[in-house]
């Protein structure tokens, strides 16, 4: 298989090693572009300050991106060494693969939990605070491996009911009662 040029290998190495930094910088770049496209619709007098701030952000972003990709002593050399083989390199590669698998599993675990939180937030207004909180509580405890039946059943319901009671009677905040529930009952 033909070897990539050293520079490309270096960039690939950086992208793999610092993929989160690259991803974050990309997201920030998109964020700035989205705001930049809104600027023409804003009156000139109200536009100057955000424009200056955006320029400041863009300059800092360029510096951060430069620091991610700037050639360090190790990067290109590492790209060269990784192709040279040897027993230690094979062990290190296997370890890196296992680490990557574990990270993937951990990321998926966290991602599903975040999705569950989002679903909980979106369902509060439809199902009501008490039902959605109790359901989320049960899911959260079971998802994180808590198998104590008393805790899994009682804690979410008690927490939801207690918070509803405190907020309604002492803080005068009526939590959502659920549009779906109100429709059917």
């Amino acid at each position, binding site marked *: 298989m033909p070897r990539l040029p050293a520079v490309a290998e270096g960039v690939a190495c950086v992208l793999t090693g610092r993929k989160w930094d690259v991803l974050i910088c990309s997201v920030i770049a998109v964020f700035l572009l989205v705001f930049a496209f809104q600027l023409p619709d804003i009156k000139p007098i109200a536009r100057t300050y955000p424009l200056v701030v955006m320029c400041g952000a863009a300059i*800092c972003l360029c510096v*951060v991106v430069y620091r991610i990709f700037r050639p360090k002593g190790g990067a290109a050399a590492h790209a060269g060494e990784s192709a040279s083989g040897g027993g230690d390199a094979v062990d290190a590669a296997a370890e890196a693969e296992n680490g990557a698998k574990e990270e993937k599993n951990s990321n998926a675990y966290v991602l599903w939990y975040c999705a569950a939180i989002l679903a909980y937030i979106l369902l509060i207004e439809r199902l009501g*605070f008490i039902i959605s909180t109790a359901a989320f509580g049960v899911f959260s405890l079971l998802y994180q491996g808590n198998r104590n039946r008393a805790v899994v059943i009682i804690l979410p319901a008690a927490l939801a009911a207690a918070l509803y009671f405190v907020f309604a009677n002492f803080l005068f905040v009526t939590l959502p009662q659920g549009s779906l529930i109100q429709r059917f009952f």
Partner: protein
Amino acid sequence: MWDNIAYGLSQIFVLNNLWIMAAGIIAGIIFGALPGFSATMGCAVCVPFSYVLEPQQALLLLSGVYCGGVYAGSIPAILVGIPGTPASAPTAFEGRALTRLGRGGEALGICTYASSMGGFLSSIALIFLAPALALIAIKVGPPEQAMIAVFGLSVVCMLSPDAVFKGLLVGFCSLLLACIGQDPQVGFPRFTFGSVDLYGGVSLVPILIGLFSFPEVISMLETKDGVFIKSANPGRIRFKPGVLIKNLFNQIRSTIIGIFIGIIPAAGPDIASFLSYNTAKRASKQPEKFGCGSEEGIIASETANNAVTGGSLIPLLALGIPGSAPAAIFLGAMYIHGLRPGAALFRDHSDTVYTLLAGFAVINILMFFIGLLFCKISSFILVIPKSVLSTAIVVLATVGAYAIGKNMFDVIQMYAAGICGYFMVKNNYPVSPVALALLLGALLESSLAQTGVMYRGNYLMMFTRPLTVVFACFVILSVFWPVIMKALKKLVNKVGKSA
């Protein structure tokens, strides 16, 4: 001023206020003692509970949470070696060693006393320095306000020398977020993307709740241990008066360090505790004892980290610049209750302010007794599964964010801020600039606009004002601080080598 202090003291000893302070301290101790929670999170989650209270009661509640939260991080630090808050990390070194020697009760007693003493002395400084600084604040006009806001934001450079540009990037992006909504000059809606919910701008408190609580929840998910390590039984909680008298100078020095660090915007208790610990080690006659159970180390660390609490409120009340992350949340709560920091606060709301100032001193005294009680039962409370804690944080954060505006959009903002906060923390992007920029962004823009009107667009004229020049010097110092520190280190190494 003495009349106001006397009035404040008279308000403190009203039964309702005493209950509220005690409730705040207990909530703060619970948040601070549980690893994964923090004083900042405690303040963020308790802000919605303060809405129905009178402004002075709300501030007393949050002060109790703040002081209790900072103190209580030392309890798991001593009993299980895991600091409840980063500020208690030095205490973990010494306290755990003492626990292994069977002197855990003594460590807890010393720590409780040192925290209360540091907090109490800083509250005395707060009583005298905040009004004095507020007098200077009378001379502050739009140019000075703009420079103060820039200084507050530039401190981010001083605090993250290894990630200066990341900190600046976060600061600028947060300033851009603060532009969402109506501009302060002509009320033109900006960056609302057609959404009515964004006309009023982003919601500060829900964002702070998400930023400071979600990263901890997700970190708990990533470490899948079921239950915390069972904590050691502390035994009898006590402290020897001789140890405390021997460390009197240590306490005074640590208090001064804590107050000074507290005054610096965005510098928090963690910096103060490490700085004080290292200073005590260098000054100690028995430095070899550090790391093996040194009472000096615990006293230095705990006195300083609680002294930050009073110190951080000094620039907050006088200039509107929060001295720490919990103080930033404090400021958000003040805005919600219609209190604007500055000279006008001391003039128009002197009853509220002096009740807070007097209350701060009493809170630290109460914290001593409540803290000692809590130490006795702490070994039971620390054994709580992470699954329960993370579930409770998510639910509390959600309901807290909703309660502010009774609007699910605030909860969405909280969630989005939480996810962003997690990625920021994981990739070494500082989170403090977000809070500062959202708080100071509006002030910066409006004061720059007013300055432009004052000097007809010639912004350089603002540097003819002495206070503006003073703050500009602070800005330059904070921006170039990492460079200065590097150069100093090189010089010291060079001198050391040549010697």
